[in-house]
């Protein structure tokens, strides 16, 4: 979708199918899901699993 210098995204949002990236960026709750799920999996859960696997000292 072309971007206009001063207005909104070009084209009529009612009559034109928006590209998937535009739909993603326009949906704050989908962004919220991504922003919580990605670090939760890659940082927190992965990190906690690694610490949990450390053998307990005898």
């Amino acid at each position, binding site marked *: 979708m072309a971007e206009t210098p*001063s207005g909104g995204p070009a084209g009529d949002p009612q009559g034109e199918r928006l590209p998937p990236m535009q739909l993603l960026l326009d949906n704050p709750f989908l*962004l919220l899901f991504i922003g919580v799920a990605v670090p939760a999996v890659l940082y927190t859960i992965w*990190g906690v699993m690694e610490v949990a696997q450390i053998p307990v000292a005898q």
Partner: protein
Amino acid sequence: MANAAAFRVCPETGLKVCHHAEILIKANAVVAVVFLAIGGLFGLLVALTRWPAVHILPADLFYLALTAHGADVLLFWIIFFEIAVLYFASAVLLNSRLAAPKWAWFAFALMLVGALMANVAVLQGESSVMFTSYVPMKAAPHFYLGLIVFAVGALIACFVFFGTLVIARQERTYEGSIPLVTFGAVTAAVIAVYTIASGAIILIPTFLWSVGIIPHLDSIMYKVVWWGMGHSSQQINVSAHVAVWYAIAAMVLGAKPLSEKVSRTAFLLYIAFLQLASAHHLLVDPGISSSWKVFNTSYAIYLAVLGSMIHGMSVPGAIEAAQRRRGLTQGAFDWLRRAPWGNPAFSGMVLSVIMFGFLGGISGVVLGTEQLNLIMHNTLYVPGHFHATVVAGTTLAFMAITYLVVPLIFRKEIMFPGMARWQPYLFGLGAMGISFFMMGAGTLGVSRRHWDMTFADAVLKFEYPPAAFLMMGLNGISALLATLGGIMFIVIVVGSVFFGKPRDEAAIKRNPVIGPSGGAAVSQYGGEATFNLPGTTILVAVFFVSFVLYYFINWKYLSEVWPLR
């Protein structure tokens, strides 16, 4: 339904300002500045103690001051101000009413009670566990409870922000997509939710441990989850201050982003990857694999760094494009030379961009490289880095936009305009010195969080090189400069808010704070759609050369630490 009586129309921007949002922005901003003053004072005491020739506090008070400084400026000042930014970027920029004002007040009350509770706990002297509060160091239970109550309040405020976005969309208060500044605020709020969730996951069991209900907390487990909060809270700042950069450029100069799509994609990279930088605090900890460390701090975080570099080009590019549109087309830098350097909102924003990029950004990448991190892990390089991001970057950006918030939201004239003109330069110079000299001392091995770098009472003697002592002296002088700049800011803001002249029509005509088409530029979707930016291209090239040189200099340092023979 929206109540027409609950709005006023801003005569300068043309935006509809919701009464509830306006009052809440004022309340959050005022409390934020109070915590900045308190936390800044503690910061000065810390710097003067770490200056060997002054060494002002005894050890117990040093750790108390360090704890209070960290909590007050890294959490309370920043997050109160960010909540004000969220309400501005949603209700005001979208011409919408604020969702659930009573909940917003409840959130404010929780945040205030929590912040006061944590401060009382620290000042009582039994909670000098520093900002990180690593277990098994144990603070008083009301220290943890205060942080939890504060976090719950901040979380409610974030959902008031999301609710306002929903209302604005439903009531069609804007057309098309939300403006970029609001999108930046969405990014900050998303990261805040992850941050606060991480805080809840670790601080609730820590509170239960402090009252004796839970017998033991694993220290590495604590560190992994705590840093999900501790470092991510600083990523809220990054997103918020980048949004503030775009907002100031738009309002003062009418600058629109070079490309909305590219800038929004850069924010998307923040949303997905910026929080992963938390792992750089654990790069030397045992028990966690190199895969986890390297993936999080190198591969993934480089995507967020890409986002920062896009913003680092887009903001000056937007300014150049707007200036060239106004006819400042001579040579590569006429637009920069003839920029409004006497306007503290503009100068503060530009200094924030430069110092965040050159000092905070580059040092962050160096710290996040697992091998290079070994040279400066847990040295003063780390606080040097985050003073470049949080003080020179975020705090300076928030100070800069305050020079617009006071006339536009408080509707008061800025008092002491001559002092205001110089304030960002003085504070910026001090902040730059603090960051630069702490990083220098850290490169020479000076430990962070240590009361006495002379080790006067240590059984085993150790001496840092003399240059490290010089660095700490210069750091102390820089802290004095930054404090002076901070006091000037407090005097100007408090004076303007409580004693300033009301900003009537004559004052608006005499001293406009919004540039041509500034109101539209900040509140509407749309880009400059030009890439004829010779000045920005040169500046970006200088940045890249500096980045590459500094990165490889650190590999040279590393080779000297561990020579291959």
